């Protein structure tokens, strides 16, 4: 196990480096620079002379390798630099936005698992049954539904026509903190969470369903049932547990999906999270923020995937012995 762990960790290092290089290169091929992005909202143009000065100020005229080396060293010291837009530490801006995204995605994840697992097990337990068929269709519809379209339609229905839910934002002004303001905050969370959930819900539910349906046919499940275990118990205790391991791996991969969804959803609902920060920073060519966010996002995924792999290896000896292809 130790050997496998070390191996796995060693493999993660080049991945990490690859991530950093990729992002850094991308940004510096960009046609716009932070200078021209200023004044984006009002459409104001900055004179060329002022633009040139800013280019010099931000060090954009030093050679690429020098810039990259400097940045690598800073990252090593966990110094993510300062945002070009407001000169505050990048870490501060990210930490400000992170709780909002975590809240949104955390709730979405909870809802996804909470609905997908029971639904998937129930559907997978009776493949081709009525629940399976109906849920199959519905889930596919959800999976194919573009999130930005769904958001627009939901906003129109619930915010504009019915006026049940607020349109945007985290909370209404003057909302008390703590329990008193909870209902208001929940109202604001409702639409964004729904939009973020339904896509991964569809995906996950189908996965659980097929995993359970397949495991159901395995010998040990049949054996369990032959021993007299009830169908439900056989399903949960055995089929699901065996379908679980691959699913754990997939959880690691869900994070990038959720973060991606955040970019669109946070923009539409004016949610001040990491997704919105990323998109705005791309438009503003705020290099330090984009670099830091891409790095953090990828690293978080890497860590999750690593953990999942190790958990998988812990559970399945074949993997750590290398006899099972991974």
């Amino acid at each position, binding site marked *: 196990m130790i050997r496998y762990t070390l191996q796995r960790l060693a493999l993660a290092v080049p991945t990490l480096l690859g991530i950093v290089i990729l992002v850094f290169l991308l940004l510096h091929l*960009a*046609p*716009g*620079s932070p200078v*021209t*992005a*200023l*004044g*984006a*909202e*009002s*459409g*104001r*143009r*900055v*004179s*060329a*002379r*002022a*633009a*040139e*000065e*800013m280019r010099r*100020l931000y060090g954009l005229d030093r050679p690429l390798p020098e810039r990259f080396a400097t940045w690598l060293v800073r990252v090593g010291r966990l110094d993510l630099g*300062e945002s070009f*837009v*407001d*000169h*505050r530490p990048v870490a501060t*801006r990210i930490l*400000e*936005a992170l709780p909002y995204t975590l809240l949104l995605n955390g709730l979405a994840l909870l809802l996804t698992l909470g609905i997908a697992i029971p639904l998937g097990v129930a559907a997978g337990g009776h493949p081709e049954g009525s629940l399976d068929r109906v849920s199959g269709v519905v889930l596919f519809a959800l999976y194919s539904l573009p999130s930005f379209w769904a958001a627009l339609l939901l906003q129109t229905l619930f*915010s*504009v026509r019915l006026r049940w839910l607020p*349109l*945007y*934002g*985290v909370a*209404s*002004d003057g909302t008390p903190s703590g329990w008193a303001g909870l209902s208001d905050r929940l109202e604001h969370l409702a639409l964004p969470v729904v939009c973020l959930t339904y896509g991964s819900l569809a995906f996950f539910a189908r996965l659980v369903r097929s995993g359970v349906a397949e495991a159901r046919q395995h010998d040990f499940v049949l054996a369990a049932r032959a021993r007299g275990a009830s169908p439900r118990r056989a399903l949960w205790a055995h089929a699901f547990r065996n379908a679980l391991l691959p699913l754990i791996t997939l959880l690691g991969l869900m994070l990038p999906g959720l973060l991606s969804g955040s970019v669109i959803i946070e923009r539409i609902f*004016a949610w*001040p999270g990491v997704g*919105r*920060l990323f998109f*705005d920073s791309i*438009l*503003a*060519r705020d290099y330090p923020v984009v670099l830091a966010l891409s790095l953090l996002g990828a690293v978080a995924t890497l860590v999750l995937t690593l953990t999942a792999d190790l958990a998988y290896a812990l559970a399945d000896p074949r993997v750590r012995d290398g006899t099972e292809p991974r």
Partner: protein
Amino acid sequence: MRLLATTLVAIALLAGCRGKERQGAFAAPRKSPAPAATRVGSSPADGGTLYRRLFGEPGSLNAVLQTDVPEQLVLQYLSRNLFDFDDRLALVPGLAERFETSPDGLSFTVHLRPEAVWEDGVPVTPSDAVFTIRKIADPGTSSPLYKSFFEDLVSVEEAGPHAFRARFRRVDAYRAMAFALPLLPARRFQGVAFDRAPDNRAPLSNGPYRLTSWKAQESITLERNLRYWGPRGYFDRIVFRVVPENAVAYRALVQGDLDESWIDAPLKQRAAEDPAFSQCCRVVEFYDLDYNYIALNARLPFFADPRARRAVTMLLDREGIARHLFQGSARVISGPWAPESPAYDSSVEPLPFDPKGAAALLEDLGWRDTNGDGIRDRDGREFDFELLVSAGNTIGRQIDETFAAALARVGVRARVRPLEWASFVERVDSGAFEAASLASSASDPNPDPYPYWDSSQWPPRGLNSGFYRNPEADRLMEQARGERQEDRRIAIYHRLHRIFRDDAPAVFVVNATKKYGLRRRLQGVETSPLGLFGIWPGPLGWWALEAPAGVRP
């Protein structure tokens, strides 16, 4: 001479009268009217909170470094200018009481109010002014808004306990506008990097309000500055909400989460048909100095000849655009100014919408479809160009697509291409474009066309991105810059207007109204050619009616 100048200033101050016709900016500043002095009608509820909209997050609240509108809107409450523009674009005293010009027109002595103080009680002194101006002129500082005013600065120094003097290299008719300038407290920036000073996030105020909270991406809250020397603001609190989407802002307005919001033509139409809107709110609409135009790159073979540019202008149905795309709330312009500007000569008629005439002109110039592909060509070059537009600019895109359709009908191809803002500006500013849909946005009333149309201002030096060149126009523009007499200057501009109309350096489209949705309780909103916010008192003069019990105001 100095005595005469001072006397003139004194007379001007005493004679300041609202009935006077448009004042040039070079006139001595008039006495400023007290804000909210006229409150007639039902009793206003004093205090309370005003909810304003920001369509983006301010980068920093440093008055010198500010680059964009959200920053200006907030800083307006925190940081008084030395002088302000009133609703008729004349300079009025702010932090400064008056200024004097030297006889040679190169030196300006500005006198600060002795009672001006910062929120911590320390007086505003000439050292603050000197520090601020030196910072702006410093090549190491990026101050897009003010830098150009001080490019000709020779020196600035204190000139007494309440005055400072600035000296410039050459005479400029609009030099006085440079002093519509906010100040920074010099002592707060000692020993810190200017870009990273803590004051940039927590500025010290010398205005009627001070910053009490800034929730990134959400809101900025201001409360009364009790040490403010001037008339106090009406509201107890100002809350700026960050709302980037117009449609969302509209709904916030109707629901009462915002008291004001800029709206565009489609939203104005929606407001007209929305009973909920008419109950709670009203639309305020006025013409300002902004206008839309399509820049043409004169280095291209088809745009090099003014006749071709005229032909292309005649292919755009500007009246139709004003009538349908702007629902009538726009007027066609014939030159690079809005009709509200003194430089605009209303006797200069726009070129007519005449597709047949335009086609004939193109034929005469040799642009004919020789290879049968439906596009006119000449000397092997097709009349085919790329028309850039900024991605978020809905109306620009609509104008462009209409234009492209009209051009297609006479055998000219325009490929409309939206670019996201950063790339768009890069291409335009460097002159690396063929045609581009632009909007001219005025932050001050200076109508000087020199930076945009003089042939010495080609990229990368200046803003004449289309490489336009007309020696006679150059001569007139330079003459106007040095002309100190306002009426003579205006006369030169009128001549230039005619030249620009005939030469068509760009396709001048329309000057559209600015529209704002306001909640009915909001009063005292004055409009001006500079908009609602660029003037004094502007938002500082707003007040609100008290709501009847139980009704949301």
